């Protein structure tokens, strides 16, 4: 037996970890969006029966698309750590793989959400309904690129936050995990505000003269996501596998 065969490049274990976690999240995403489409269709039929359809119903799925993967990632971060380490992999590859998977998941949710909104708008137009987004989504809410960038970045922050909340509970226990929620999950609410038009001082629509609100908000969201990713990486690299009794 040669010990050298045990050598394995870092990139491949990061890729394996990322794709494994990504597929798990995409599997759940498929269910999420199938259920969302069914719910929106039923909702539209019902509203059309009792009154007048005058705003997007699908837009409300954004809250679910933020918080559902967020909670899934909290759970998987705690549960997957022992499995990953026990398989002879490094914490480094776990941290990087998880971040890549969270970003990929956010991109998938962002693309599907934007795509479905466009489909919904086309259906509304065909049926002569008024399509608008009640929830204050983005500075230019009907622009597809703006919707895509805004929601995807919001999801990125939310999902990285899920990882961070998960590892904080794992490292610090229930009490400190809860106490630090404003730091670990609070940034999601901040990014909601950054992309909103009417969120007081947090709304980026007035910053730097208000010329490029999307750019400013995106930059701020990326900074926040980066800081959280850094914290997640640090905490993961020092994590112990807890003693679990069967």
């Amino acid at each position, binding site marked *: *037996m040669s*010990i050298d*065969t*045990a*050598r*394995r490049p*870092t990139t491949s*274990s990061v890729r*394996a970890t990322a794709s*494994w976690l990504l597929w798990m999240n995409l599997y759940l995403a498929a269910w999420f969006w199938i259920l969302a489409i069914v719910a929106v269709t039923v909702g539209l039929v019902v509203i059309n029966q009792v009154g007048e359809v005058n705003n997007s119903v699908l837009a409300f799925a954004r809250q679910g698309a933020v918080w559902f993967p967020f909670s899934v990632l909290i759970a998987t971060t705690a*549960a*997957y750590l*022992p*499995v990953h*380490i*026990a*398989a*002879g*992999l*490094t*914490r*480094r*590859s776990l941290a990087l793989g998880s971040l890549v998977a969270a970003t990929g998941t956010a991109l998938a949710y962002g693309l599907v959400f934007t795509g479905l909104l466009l489909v919904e708008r086309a259906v509304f137009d065909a049926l002569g309904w008024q399509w608008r987004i009640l929830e204050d989504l983005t500075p230019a809410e009907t622009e597809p690129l703006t919707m895509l960038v805004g929601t995807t970045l919001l999801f990125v922050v939310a999902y990285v936050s899920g990882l961070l909340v998960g590892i904080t509970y794992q490292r610090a226990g229930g009490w400190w995990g809860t106490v630090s929620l404003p730091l670990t999950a609070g940034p999601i609410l901040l990014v909601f505000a950054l992309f909103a038009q009417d969120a007081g001082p947090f709304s980026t629509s007035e910053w730097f003269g208000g010329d490029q609100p999307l750019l400013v908000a995106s930059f701020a969201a990326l900074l926040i996501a980066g800081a959280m990713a850094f914290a997640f990486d640090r905490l993961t*690299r*020092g994590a*112990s*596998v807890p*003693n*679990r*009794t*069967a």
Partner: protein
Amino acid sequence: MSGFGVEVRDLTARYDTTVALDAVSFTIRPGVITGLLGRNGSGKTTALSVLAAFRRATSGTVLVDGEDPWENERVLSGTCLVRESGDVALDQKLKETLDFLGDRRPLFSRELADTLMDRFELDPLTKPNKLSRGKRSAFGVVVGLASRTPLTLLDEVHLGMDAPSRYAFYDALLTDWLEHPRTIVLSSHLIGEVERLLEDVVVLDRGTVLTASDAETLRSGGVTVTGPAEAVEAFVVGRQVVARQQLGRTAQATLVGARDDDASRARQHGLELGPVALQDLFVHLTDRPVPAIPEESR
């Protein structure tokens, strides 16, 4: 070389205020089946957890194949720790866990895994949280052996298994070890059945190393002396007696530290010498004085 060797120097590990390991030093020879013995809470699992980088040492040095295992990709991919609780995804089918490990363990043998799954009567389509303790341990054995890692650490895995499964485990362990020699550490507090499988033994007690040697030396260090009570007492003067039994006028004393002239002296005094099973020796060595029960509670 076959398998990773391990060097542990002054290893201390603390959990908050509890000291699990106190400046422990020992060596595990590459390519050898070693027993890590100790009572519950003696620090076995903590020591193995540090070797497999499940947790960090508080202080001290641990070298696996000459390197610090912490975040060491080469060493970690060649180290497999199977704890009794089993660190596998609880909501995944066993088959999926084997697929997962096959993609991650460079030397993983799916063929061996499938053979062992059959032998232990494990259904690849069930999930770990549906398994009995014994079956879950058996799956741990499948994972540990099929990974064929140069350093395989099996922590109390055989305890929950029924007798036929345990024998199947011992047979599979020996057969596969002969074909693919590697370093294997079996940790346990119950060693009766495994003692003959061991070449080396490290005994931990209350976070320190009680003894570390080859199994034969440890075993031959123990001897029982049986015969008339007075003759036995005369024989054991000045010796380390770890246990005494008496039945009528016949007494038996268990000694640690056999001497070369024991056999001839015993013959001279009409005494009989007998072996001490490693398990008994271990129980005697790690025996704690029973605290006196307070008068009131009797």
